[in-house]
């Protein structure tokens, strides 16, 4: 398996706070990696750094052998990494179709002149963007297509908003998708369904996935490998069983037993 993302000695400090400290991390092509850790462990900061929204203080991020350091978020997306947001951030007043169409921006190239002249190239590209958007939305069953296409994203239920966020990430045609708590706030049935979808994202669409998740059932079911972060450091990594039985991980989540503290 080839290495897709390779991160070494990654650190970031906000003032005196070490949000991440000398983090080493890697993802192979076709893997699904779960990132877990208690609140404040630095998981979202970690995603923000990969996607270029926060610049690291030191360290290296290599994607397909090329460094991502210093790139803007849009350039990172262009290279093939896309993400969802923990606190669902859709373009609420754009329609569902538009949300997915606009995310194909970096994969299309119509400019002012071809738009104004309505060239054949422009029209076929628009058609392609539209068809691809519908294809992606159909992945989630009938929920986001049909009469839904032209409705604003704000009318969607919470679960459907999460689905649309994933659809939007897919539309940038990435190699690696970063999912930030994809099932947060969903009921058990919806979580189970989304777990299945995450598996299909790899098998049918060929995406490599890194997922932050608090729901251990979901992490267990889809992850090939689990990484646990705490205080900006890697606490443990390995299979779900290895990590979930690691005493340090248990300690980070639950605290130290009383007798040991003395």
């Amino acid at each position, binding site marked *: 398996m080839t290495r897709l993302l390779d991160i070494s000695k990654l650190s970031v400090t906000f003032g005196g706070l070490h949000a991440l400290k000398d983090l080493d991390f890697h993802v192979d092509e076709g893997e699904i990696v779960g990132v877990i850790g208690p609140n404040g462990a630095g998981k979202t900061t970690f995603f923000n750094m990969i996607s270029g929204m926060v610049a690291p203080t030191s360290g290296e991020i290599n994607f397909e052998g090329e460094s991502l350091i210093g790139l803007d978020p849009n350039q990172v997306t262009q290279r093939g990494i896309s993400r969802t947001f923990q606190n669902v951030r859709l373009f609420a007043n754009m329609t569902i179709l538009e949300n997915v169409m*606009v995310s194909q921006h*970096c994969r299309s190239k119509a400019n002012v002149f071809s738009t104004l002249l309505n060239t054949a190239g422009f029209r076929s590209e628009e058609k392609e963007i539209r068809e691809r958007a519908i294809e992606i939305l159909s992945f989630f069953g009938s929920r986001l297509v049909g009469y839904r296409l032209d409705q604003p994203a704000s009318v969607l239920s919470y679960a459907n908003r999460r689905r649309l966020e994933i659809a939007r990430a897919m539309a940038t045609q990435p190699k690696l998708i970063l999912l930030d708590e994809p099932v947060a706030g969903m009921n058990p049935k919806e979580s189970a369904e989304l777990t299945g979808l995450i598996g299909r994202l790899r098998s049918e669409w060929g995406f490599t996935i890194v997922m932050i998740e608090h729901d251990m059932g979901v992490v267990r079911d889809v992850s090939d490998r689990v990484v646990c972060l705490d205080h900006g450091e890697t606490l443990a990594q390995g299979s779900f069983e290895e990590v979930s039985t690691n005493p340090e991980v248990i300690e980070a989540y639950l605290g130290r037993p009383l007798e040991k503290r003395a």
Partner: protein
Amino acid sequence: MNLDTKLIASRGGVTAIGLVFLALAGMPVGLDPRMLIDPIFSLGYLSLLWIPLVMGGLMSQHVELEGVESEGGGVGDVVAGGLVGLLGGLGLSLLVLLVDNFDLRDPLVNWSPQLVEFLSFGKGIGVGIVLWPVIGAGLGAFGAATRLLPSKVKKPLMTATLTVLGFATFETFIVDVLEPLENLYANTGGLTITAAIVLAVLSAGLSAAGAGKQVRKVRTSYQQSTGATHSRQTALLIGGSAAFLIILPMVTGKITQELLANIGIFLLLALGLNIVVGLAGILDLGYVAFFAVGGYTTAVLTSPNRGPNFDFLPVLDGTFGWLIALGISILMAALAGLFIGAPVIRMRGDYLAIVTLGFGEIIRLLFLSDWLNGWFNGAQGITNIPPADFGFAQAKGTDPRSVFYLVLVLAAISIYVSWRLERSRLGRAWMAIREDESVAEAMGINTVNVKLMAFVVGAVLASFAGSVFAAKVGSIFPTSFLILVSIIILVIVIVGGMGSILGVMAGSVVLVGVLGGPKQPGLLQEFSEYKLLIYGALLVWMMLKRPEGLIPNVRRSRELHQEEFLQDAWLRGEVDKDEEASEAQAAGGPAPTTGGAS
């Protein structure tokens, strides 16, 4: 009878303050010579009387909740309205007394004997003091009562009033369009009493006969049609309006033609700013800079009076044709857009607005400066700009109709540009940036480039207006490009409806056409002294009552009224419930809270 004394007191106070403010602003006295209905009713009195009428009307307005029986108005509302008007009238009586006995003319220019005379109807102050509370109470009660009338009576009454007032205020325009109608008017510009009565009866009759219903029926049938029928009707509508606009200046006189040309120039500017502010969401307060660049480029290229420093290049002898000058103006404006935009565009929100404000002034001051005096003649400006010559026709200031046709062509181009871009890859990216810039960037949109593109397209559309303006006026001075122009264009876009092409058109007609541009007179020439006051009041009122503009963009009104929109969608059953709704939160709440922080 249950009177809300607190509400009456506060509304009455507002009425009194409003009346006194307008009286001291000089509006009634200034507008008194202009009659509406000769010789009994002048524009000056109208400028005061509408306040108690409207405030009284508000007293019979109750919040109605669906499913809850309306509290219903009645005699109580009429009395309340009357009391509000009475308090307002007392305010004016007090003003009469004060003006008559004290001299505050030093800070308040309009604290004058003329004001006393106006307010006492020329019959001694006693009459005024007694009469104003009576008039106020009457109007307030009447205003409140009209709301309670059945719509069969109310509609014709309203129509008649508005028709008479409309005919009376737009005298210049109406006579300019249809000369025979001159007979309706007296020498003072007001309608004769007979004409007023005839108009009132005629319009009330038409309204009672249900003419309004026909209009509404046609409109709803257009709105409800879909598919091919809808596009056919749209094409018909566009064709019809185009034909109307082409024929209109042929039948009207010079005043209307001039007005149309001015509206057109501001429409060009507003369409450009609409792309920047309405579509891309970049608040640009220095937009006039691009108007100036377009105007000056055209002036330098076509006028022999451009600054002597241009002599170093024999090509620039000031003999270019207008079309070539337009092309080069577009290029220069695009470059200016890039140069101003590049450093500015990385900022967001308020910072960006302030910096653009600065750049707008810098460009004007550069044209004014001694340093560039040899190029642009400083304050003397560039004169002797020839008209736009197309061989078969000329567009020149003395023939406003030709300018209007030129503007019409350019406006059609601008509308096409706005319309195409809005529905394209670029337009979608602008929308996304307006919604959430950092997410847009994470979704692969190069926000800097895309925003810069909006800036450049906007600049190019402004240069159209600049070139036409230069050819129309024939001379160009730095004072033509004051910051006020930027503000007025922005107000046009906001009042019309940000992001809506139709709205921008409506905004230009209402503001530039009716009230007038920064230096151009509008239809209501009488009001030109109070133009900015009215602009301001209109803007405040719009922000409170209709922030989405006259003809709103669908998306924009969705943003501003998201709650209401969601309620409507929910009533129609369009807000989805989760199929497996076991959690009440996920099913019922259209806007659930977000997950916890990690």
